[in-house]
């Protein structure tokens, strides 16, 4: 029993997590105690659970006396967590308290999903709270979510092309399947919501209801609510006990929508449920069969196992190249042929292992379509979202982490970019409906995601005014439009006149840029006044691998991420200059850029001292150029990034390590912080 962690939970539970979470917690407590054969504590937890359940569904209006008792029981539970349970005395009120609860028992069990045991039977602590086979439950959750997710794009499609029967059928099928399986699993609340939505969709199929405006909003809300309820099933299984907040209201609104639009509400509605109900149960499996056919080709795999596999394959590749170089000198033709065969298989295996984590970006785009749709209604700006390149594949963890920045950028586009009223657009010679394009494509080992709107573009005057006001710049004189645009990435910059819940919370583009850079990507922005804005995100294909330039300094090798490298120069005497004490400059096509000796930054002995004897690698993190003097550039290579381990995290200048083909570890330079290191101690370089 994890006593320490549960104790504060009990006392603070009501305030922090509300009743639903509380019930789940007590259920857990109860199970754990039962397992340890702590019957007393289990009974305490049971009493508390019952009380909370009865109270939260409104079957129990506790009087002060009962609340006092409940407090004492909670206090006992708290003590039982702190002390050995066996030494505790049963609170005297427990018996009476349970007796009181028995009075509300029938109604408690009425909302319980499974046929509940009689509450009077106290030795049987199974409250009858939803306790389906966890495997079945997780299967249900997965399937239902797939159905609902598949319905969403069709709904959005229906909004742009009303009357698309195929899309409508697909949406209907999704709700129907959810209803069917929910019925099968005896999840009545979910079944009910899905059923009402299905009735409404059925009317839409008959042409009696137009799926647009408020009706569409309602259907989408229902979709969200169902997702929420289904998620709750896993996070707090006790939720199945009762309707989630707002469920009843939603059902009522769905009913109203059905009634309000039907010619004969009396006959249409009641007949609907009875047929659909039975049909739903019988159809459950066939419906599932067809709908899940498209997803059955996927297999869910534990993330850590996948990482282990990828790691091992990485090792195999290294071992293979060591073996190859060892064999090269001494094996006969047969041996060489086998070796090259092994090599081929290893390479293929490596390619495959890297693709395991890749998923198409389509799912993310779908979420964004929904966001744009909701925002456009909220802001009352008609916007069409066009997406392309959804099939582009990206590392799953990058997709997860790029969602927030992308959402922020789209919000910005809609809130600031698109003209507030359509008349302005017409006056500017644009169509009334604004267009936002979201495209992804693959180029040169990177993934690009572009967000293009045809709004009014960045307001540079306002940006300059704001930057001056914030003290970000002293004067805008001599700044190019592009440089002005860059100002919006400065921390704390926000041009929104008022803080809205759409965008403009002061954490704006700087956070977007930081998040993208944390993924080792970059953000680029182009804006044309009156024409629109284009934001380009450049992201690596995967977080695990980088393309790196291997350089030598003295006896050591380092890897510089190719993404940051602009060029390599073998300097000539006349291009070099010294400024003051220690400041060194290299002239590149008329421009003077500072450079540093890498050997001095990383404290390596035996490196070349004369810049003319080495190579200067020109880097440009954040568009800010500087050079690093190295002895030699050994070549370009893909490496798998690894952490250096405890005590060696966050060292300035070092981003991580990689296993080199010879089995040794090579260090990957963090170009951004190595520059900090250099600028902080100019004497060093």
């Amino acid at each position: 029993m994890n006593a320490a962690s549960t104790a504060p939970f009990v006392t603070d539970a009501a305030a922090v997590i509300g009743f639903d979470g509380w019930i789940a917690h007590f259920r857990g407590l109860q199970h754990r105690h039962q397992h340890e054969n702590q019957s007393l504590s289990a009974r305490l937890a049971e009493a508390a659970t019952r009380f909370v359940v009865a109270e939260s569904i409104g079957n129990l209006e506790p009087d002060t006396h009962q609340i006092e008792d409940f407090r004492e029981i909670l206090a006992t539970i708290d003590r039982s967590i702190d002390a050995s349970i066996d030494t505790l005395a049963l609170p005297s009120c427990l018996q009476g308290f349970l007796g009181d609860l028995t009075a509300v028992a029938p109604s408690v069990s009425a909302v319980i999903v499974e046929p509940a045991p009689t509450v009077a039977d106290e030795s049987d602590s199974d409250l009858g709270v939803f306790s389906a086979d966890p495997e079945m439950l997780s299967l249900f959750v997965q399937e239902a979510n797939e159905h609902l997710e598949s319905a969403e794009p069709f709904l959005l499609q229906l909004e742009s092309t009303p009357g698309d029967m195929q899309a409508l059928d697909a949406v209907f099928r999704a709700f129907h399947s959810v209803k069917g399986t929910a019925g099968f699993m005896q999840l009545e609340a979910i079944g009910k919501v899905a059923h009402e939505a299905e009735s409404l969709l059925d009317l839409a199929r008959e042409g009696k209801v137009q799926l647009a405006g408020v009706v569409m909003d309602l259907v989408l809300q229902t979709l969200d609510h169902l997702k929420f309820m289904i998620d709750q099933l896993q996070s707090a299984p006790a939720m199945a006990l009762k309707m989630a907040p707002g469920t009843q209201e939603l059902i009522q609104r769905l009913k109203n929508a059905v009634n309000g639009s039907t010619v004969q509400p009396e006959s249409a509605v009641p007949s609907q449920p009875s047929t659909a109900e039975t049909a739903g149960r019988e159809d459950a499996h066939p419906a599932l069969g067809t709908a899940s056919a498209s997803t059955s080709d996927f297999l869910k795999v534990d993330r850590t196992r996948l990482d282990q596999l990828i790691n091992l394959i990485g090792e195999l590749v290294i071992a293979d190249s060591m073996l190859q170089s060892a064999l090269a000198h001494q094996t006969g033709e047969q041996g060489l042929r086998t070796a090259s065969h092994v090599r081929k298989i290893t390479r293929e295996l490596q390619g495959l292992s890297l693709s395991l984590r890749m998923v198409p970006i389509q799912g993310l785009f779908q979420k964004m379509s929904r966001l744009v749709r909701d925002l456009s209604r909220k802001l009352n700006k008609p916007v069409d979202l066009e997406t392309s390149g959804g099939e582009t594949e990206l590392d799953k963890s990058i997709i997860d982490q790029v969602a927030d920045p992308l959402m922020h950028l789209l919000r910005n586009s809609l809130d600031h970019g698109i003209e507030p009223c359509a008349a302005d657009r017409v006056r500017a010679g644009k169509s009334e409906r604004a267009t936002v394009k979201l495209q992804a494509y693959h180029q040169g080992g990177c993934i690009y995601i572009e967000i293009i709107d045809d709004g009014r573009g960045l307001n540079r005057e306002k940006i300059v005014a704001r930057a001056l006001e914030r003290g970000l710049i002293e004067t805008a004189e001599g700044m190019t439009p592009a440089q002005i645009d860059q100002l919006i990435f400065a921390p704390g910059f926000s041009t929104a006149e008022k803080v809205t819940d759409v965008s403009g919370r002061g954490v704006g583009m700087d956070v977007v840029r930081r998040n993208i850079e944390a993924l080792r990507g970059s953000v680029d922005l182009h804006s044309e006044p009156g024409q629109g804005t284009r934001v380009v995100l450049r992201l690596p294909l995967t977080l695990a691998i980088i393309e790196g330039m291997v350089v030598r300094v003295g006896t050591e090798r380092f890897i510089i991420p190719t993404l940051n490298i602009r060029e390599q120069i073998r300097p000539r005497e006349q291009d070099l200059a010294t400024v003051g004490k220690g400041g060194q400059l290299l002239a590149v096509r008329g421009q003077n850029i500072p450079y540093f000796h890498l050997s001095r930054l990383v404290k390596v002995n035996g490196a070349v001292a004369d810049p003319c004897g080495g190579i200067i690698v020109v880097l440009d993190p954040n568009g800010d150029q500087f050079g690093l003097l190295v002895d030699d550039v050994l070549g370009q290579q893909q490496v798998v990034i690894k952490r250096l381990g405890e005590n060696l995290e966050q060292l300035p200048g070092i981003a991580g390590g990689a296993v080199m083909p010879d089995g040794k570890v090579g260090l990957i330079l963090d170009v951004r912080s190595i520059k900090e290191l250099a600028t902080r101690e100019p004497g060093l370089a």
Partner: protein
Amino acid sequence: MSVAPVAPDASLATAALGGKYLTFRIAGDQFGVPILQVREIIGLMPMTPVPGAPDDIKGVINLRGKIIPVMDVRERFHLETTAANDRNCIVVVELTSDGRSVEMGMLVDAVSEVLNIKNDDIAPPPDFGMKLDTSCLLGIAKTGKDVKVLLDLEQIVFRSASDLAAVEAAVEA
């Protein structure tokens, strides 16, 4: 069960320290670490020095695809260097903290043996007063004529110990 005599650190005093220890030699002194924390013993391999790392971290190595730091315990304990020979090796230890396992290599001159040390034979690290910190020691074990310094790897690996000069003094005592 008997309890080790009172040590400056109360949490160590109450812990039952008896059990199996892997003992090894560094600069002529014998040290021991709990065998359960030892993952494997590997031969010396080329290390990559890490700029900016603490002085006693000699570098990082590739342990079957995983990069782990290697500590020179000698450096940490201010012991003198001994000439390299083929018995030098790296003891890889593994510790868990917050559910995460941390691996680290320790350079040693030679591995001696696995010893079963009784709780009664372990004395708490002597109190050297304020000047010497003994927090990275589990205790001093007496086995026959030998004295073995038992290391508290948690303290060493997670770097909460400050001064390891205590060890030298303990060994001399």
